[in-house]
Structures are given as structure tokens and as C-alpha cells.
């Protein structure tokens, strides 16, 4: 039982440490080209999120934003494993998942800046990134609903007889809301081609997930209640995520029904823009900083014989891409009155009376 002191100040609790790096994954069955793509994706997502943070500090991004810093391996791993026709459903922490499906980084950045050339014309913002053409079916900012919605896209694929899979990313906190359980049950009884991916970053906003959850693994330990298995994996190891994604997607695509993965990870920063994350034990933050996916994967790629220069070149390409995205976004006009009243209804208007 936690002490009162621990419940008053969570930073006094014992740190929850990352798993040791699984060195056997050096020999994992991941093609070299895929590994280079994964590294590029990690670099783009990391540098994009850092830039988004800088732009907050310059007051160019208003409102709030939830960054995936430290958690990029999950979006990168699944992004590399998914087919172009597959569907992604993300939460408000959705920048990485949107970029990982191939959305234009400039349009994503412009959306954060509230510009006319943003992915959603400035109407959605950071928490609602969507790019239907790329299979990114939306970022849903109220916990729970989008698991049920992802089921619907999977049901649609099943009815249309395609081999599309819907992949739904959510946090550890989501596992305690009713919609999580409704969604898993329906997916199981209808054998829907859907993959549920729990990004367990150990913190439900400002509260440690283990203090408010009945089981140690919020998704992994609950899957069996719905006839599923959910491997608990190192969500900071891109190879581990990629392999789990390939397996889960294959299962869902085969018609056997839904799959679930619990990827344990850590966000390097706070929950959102307003949060410096000071409630966390210093030793915990430090330990996870030592288990960051980027240096981890950099080291692995060197071990498998990729040249340092090749990695440096990828890092430079990513930096260039993010610079271009920033310039594209900053050059965008502010959206005006001409779009304020559009697209409420399917005829493009907001007309509710004659």
C-alpha cells in the first residue's frame, strides 16, 4: 500500500524502471531497409515534436498540445508495418501517428500553428489531426470513444470484404473507461479486423497508472477477459514494436478477430503543454532517459553494420524536412471568415433553416 506521503507527492514513490534492452533483437527478422526507414521515422517524429515544442515557446502554437517525445517507436514501428489501406485512429497525442502514416509534415505543422494551409484548415488543431487519404482516420480527444469508432471502420472493412485493418492507439488511462471494455467485447464477438495498441507510458496524465488500475498491466492483463492475448512489449524498442505490429496485423487481417498489444513506454516531457511533469520521481525520469528509443536504435543499427555516416545523413534529412515544414507552416495565412461557417453539413454549409 502506498503511504500517505507517497499519495501526497508521487515523486517520492519508488521509480518504475524500464526493461533491460533485449539484445537478441539485434538478430531480429527485420530487413535492413525497414530498419533504416524506422530510424528515419524516429528522427522525423522526434525532431518534429521538438520543433513543435520550440514553436510553443515562441508563442506561435496556441492552445495546448500533447507531444510523443520519448514514445516515437510505437508510431514508427506500427507505421512501418501497416499497409497503405489500413486505418489509424489516434488520441489527442496524435502528431506522431499522423506523420507515421505519411501526412505532409508542413500541413501538420501548419495545423498546429492554426494556419489556412493546415491539414484541417485550422479548424481541428493539434488534438484532431486527420488525413483520410493516408488512412489516418482521426485523432480523438475524449478518452474512450475512438476504440468504438475504430471497431466501426474494421466492421466496414469486414463487410466490404477488403483486407484492411484498423489500428487504434490509446494510452494506459483509457483502459479504465467503460468504452474500452465495450469496444473489446464487440470486436471479439464480431471478430473484427482491429488492432488495439495500448501506449502504456506509466502515467495517466498526472497520476501513476499502477495506483488506479486493478492489474499490473492495464491492457495486457485484461485482454484475456475478451478472449485475446496482448503481449506486453518494450515500446521503446523499434524492432520489438515492429515485430509485434507485424504479428498483430497478420492476426487481425487473417479474419481471426482482434489483436492487442501493450507497449510500455515513457513520455520524456509532461502530459501537455501546461505540464512540466515535476510529479515524477527523478530517478524514474532519468532511468527512462537512458532507455530512449533513438540512442537505443542508433546503437543497434551500428551493431548490424550500418555506417555512422548513413545515420548522420538520415538525421540531416529529417532536420531538413522539419525545417521545410516549419517554413511551410509559418508562410501560411491565418484562416478567415470565408471558412468559419463551412463544412458543418455535407453540402459544405452550416445551414440549419430555410
Amino acid at each position, binding site marked *: 500500500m502506498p503511504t500517505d506521503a507517497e499519495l501526497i507527492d508521487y515523486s517520492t514513490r519508488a521509480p518504475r524502471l524500464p526493461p533491460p534492452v533485449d539484445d537478441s533483437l539485434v538478430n531480429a527478422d527485420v530487413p535492413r531497409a525497414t530498419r533504416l526507414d524506422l530510424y528515419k521515422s524516429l528522427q522525423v517524429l522526434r525532431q518534429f515534436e521538438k520543433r513543435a515544442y520550440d514553436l510553443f515557446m515562441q508563442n506561435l502554437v496556441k492552445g495546448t498540445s500533447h507531444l510523443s517525445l520519448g514514445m516515437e517507436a510505437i508510431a514508427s514501428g506500427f507505421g512501418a508495418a501497416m499497409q497503405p489501406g489500413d486505418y489509424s485512429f489516434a488520441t489527442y497525442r496524435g502528431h506522431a501517428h499522423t506523420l507515421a502514416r505519411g501526412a505532409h509534415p508542413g500541413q501538420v505543422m501548419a495545423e498546429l500553428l492554426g494556419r489556412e494551409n493546415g491539414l484541417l484548415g485550422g479548424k481541428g488543431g493539434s488534438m484532431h489531426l486527420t488525413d483520410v487519404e493516408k488512412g489516418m482516420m482521426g485523432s480523438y480527444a475524449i478518452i474512450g470513444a475512438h476504440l468504438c469508432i475504430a471497431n466501426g471502420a474494421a*466492421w466496414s472493412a469486414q463487410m466490404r470484404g477488403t483486407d484492411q485493418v484498423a489500428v487504434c492507439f490509446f494510452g494506459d488511462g483509457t483502459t479504465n473507461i467503460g468504452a474500452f471494455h*465495450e469496444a473489446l467485447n*464487440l470486436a471479439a464477438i464480431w471478430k473484427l479486423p482491429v488492432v488495439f495498441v495500448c501506449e502504456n507510458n506509466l502515467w495517466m496524465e498526472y497520476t501513476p497508472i499502477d495506483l488506479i488500475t486493478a492489474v499490473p498491466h492495464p491492457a495486457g492483463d485484461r485482454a484475456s477477459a475478451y478472449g485475446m492475448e496482448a503481449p506486453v512489449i518494450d515500446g521503446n524498442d523499434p524492432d520489438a514494436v515492429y515485430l509485434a505490429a507485424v504479428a498483430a496485423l497478420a492476426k487481425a487481417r487473417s479474419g481471426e478477430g482482434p489483436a492487442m498489444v501493450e507497449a510500455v513506454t515513457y513520455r520524456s516531457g509532461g502530459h501537455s503543454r501546461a505540464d512540466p511533469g515535476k510529479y515524477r520521481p527523478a530517478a524514474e525520469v532519468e532511468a527512462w532517459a537512458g532507455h530512449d528509443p533513438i540512442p537505443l536504435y542508433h546503437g543497434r543499427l551500428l551493431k548490424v553494420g550500418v555506417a555512422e555516416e548513413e545515420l548522420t545523413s538520415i538525421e540531416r534529412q529529417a532536420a531538413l524536412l522539419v525545417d521545410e515544414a516549419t517554413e511551410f507552416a509559418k508562410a501560411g495565412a491565418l484562416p478567415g471568415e470565408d471558412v468559419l461557417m463551412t463544412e*458543418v*453539413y455535407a453540402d459544405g454549409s452550416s445551414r440549419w433553416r430555410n
Partner: protein
Amino acid sequence: MAELTYREAVAAGIAQEMRRDPRLVMLGEDIAASGGVFKTTVGLVEEFGPARIRDTPISEQAILGAAMGASMTGIPVIAEIMFSDFLAVCWDIVANQIAKSRYMTDGQVSFPLVIRTANGGGVRFGAQHSQSVENWPMMIPGLKVVAPSNPIDVIGLMAASVRDPDPVIFFEHKSLMATKADIPDREIVDELGSARVLRNGSDLTIAALALMVPRALEAAELLAADGVSAEVIDVRSLVPLDTATILGSVTKTGRFFTVEENPRLCGWGAEVASIVTEEVFWDLDGPVVRITTPHIPLPSAASLEDLALPSVDRIHETISKSLG
């Protein structure tokens, strides 16, 4: 020509659209093998099969989430929420997800879906199975709201709702289920956003919806016996709202009354009364009057529920008193 009840018309309207569009599916609790708790889906699973008429668990969020996700990826859907009171259980999906996503994504997604639900009082079910909640979705941008008052409108507005590319909340009134009408043997397709003048009159206009429509018509008979000529409009569709028909009528008669089953505060008639007052004030010969359920949860006992809902006599008396 065949005589159908309101409840049979629901199934007939769904069947008409399912025959037309082989993609259309429906899901909900007890809708398949048992034909729905109000027997509004009888015969559908036999004709269209269990893949298109699907029974679900008691999981309203899962039902509407599935409807939303399927409709945004190419499958038009009808979802049933058994009692409209239960919309509160899945209101996030209705109000935050389905309603807003087109606007938030600047038009990237569409939701060709209909949420059908049994609405309203008069059946002694008590406060959690009797509410009239059509005003809830009415106040949310992005939704359309329909409430038919008779079997022909049930079929025609069902067809219009299914064919509409926007999400439509379709309210079926529990107390009208047994009402009957002759239905022509042909495809029936109506349009959203058109009110209907059911009785012409020259002294005053009454706007009513669903169960309140037959009551308003009966009250108009009593008024006629008093020598007062009432025009009765069935509003039918709250969003889109046919203000032209209502304003045209008020301009002619000079008096306006609403008859609403919603509890008093923010019932649908409040918006209509506000529009009338703002736009044809100088054509009015007296105050706009709303006749509503009082601002209370609906009681269960028959005697109490009858006191709460606007009755023919209350409509007649309120209007007579207002005319002076």
C-alpha cells in the same frame, strides 16, 4: 394500398431502403431475432439476414461508435438506441464525435447514418424511459433531427434520413406506435426540413411535433367549435427547420402557439418562438405562447403523467385564455 401501424411503418421504411441500397446495415439491441422491443424491426432479419440486421450487446457506445466508424468508411448505417433516454449513455459519441468530426476535419469525413430511437411519454414507463429529448440533439451543430407524427411520414422521412449524407437522429414516438394509416403501394420518399400544414386556419397558428400533433389537431377542432380558426403545422424536422412555412403562417394568422412535449426549459419551441418574435414581430397580434410539459421529470402514475404532458384540453384552454 395497405393499412400499416406506425410501428409497422418503421420496419417498412427500413426495408424499403435496405432493398434499394445493398450496403445499408442496421445494428442495435434486440432488433434482429426478436424484432425490437417495440416490434419496429419485425421481419427485417428474415428478409435481409443477420449480417445486415445485427443484434448487439447492451453497449450504447460500442453501437454508435461502430455506426460512426462504418459510416465514415463507406457503409451507410442505421443504429437503434432502444429508448431515447439512453442517448445519455453514449452522448459523447453523438455530441462530440459524430456531430463535430466533419467540421473539425474540414470536410474530410462524412457520416451517412441514422440513429433511430423510441422517444416520449404517455406509456407510464416513468422518468428514465419516457423523456422527450429531441431538443438535446437540436442544439448541437452538425446533427439533423426528425420526429414523424404518422405512419406515412415515418416511411418518407426514414427514406430521406437514410439517403441524407449527414447524421440524422430519428425519433419514433412510443405513444404513436399503434396509430394506423393507409400506405400507398409505391416507394415513399420525403424530404428533411419541410414542415406540413395539416389544417388551414386564419386566427392563429399552432406548431406541434410527434405525439403533440394529433393533440393539437383535436384542440383545433374544439377551437373551431368556439368559432376560432386554428392553423396546425406539423414541424416534422427540427434540423433543418422549415421556418418559411411557420413564418408564412404566422404572418397570415397573427398569433403563434407551440405545443411541446419537452420539459419547459429550452424545449424546441423556445427556438421557434424566438425566431417568430425576432422576424415577424410586427405581424403578431398577441404574445407568442409555449404549451409544454412543466419543468419536471415525468412521473409514472397515469394520473400524474396525464397532468404533465400537454393534453387536448390544456392546449384548448391555454389558447382560449390567451385569446381572451
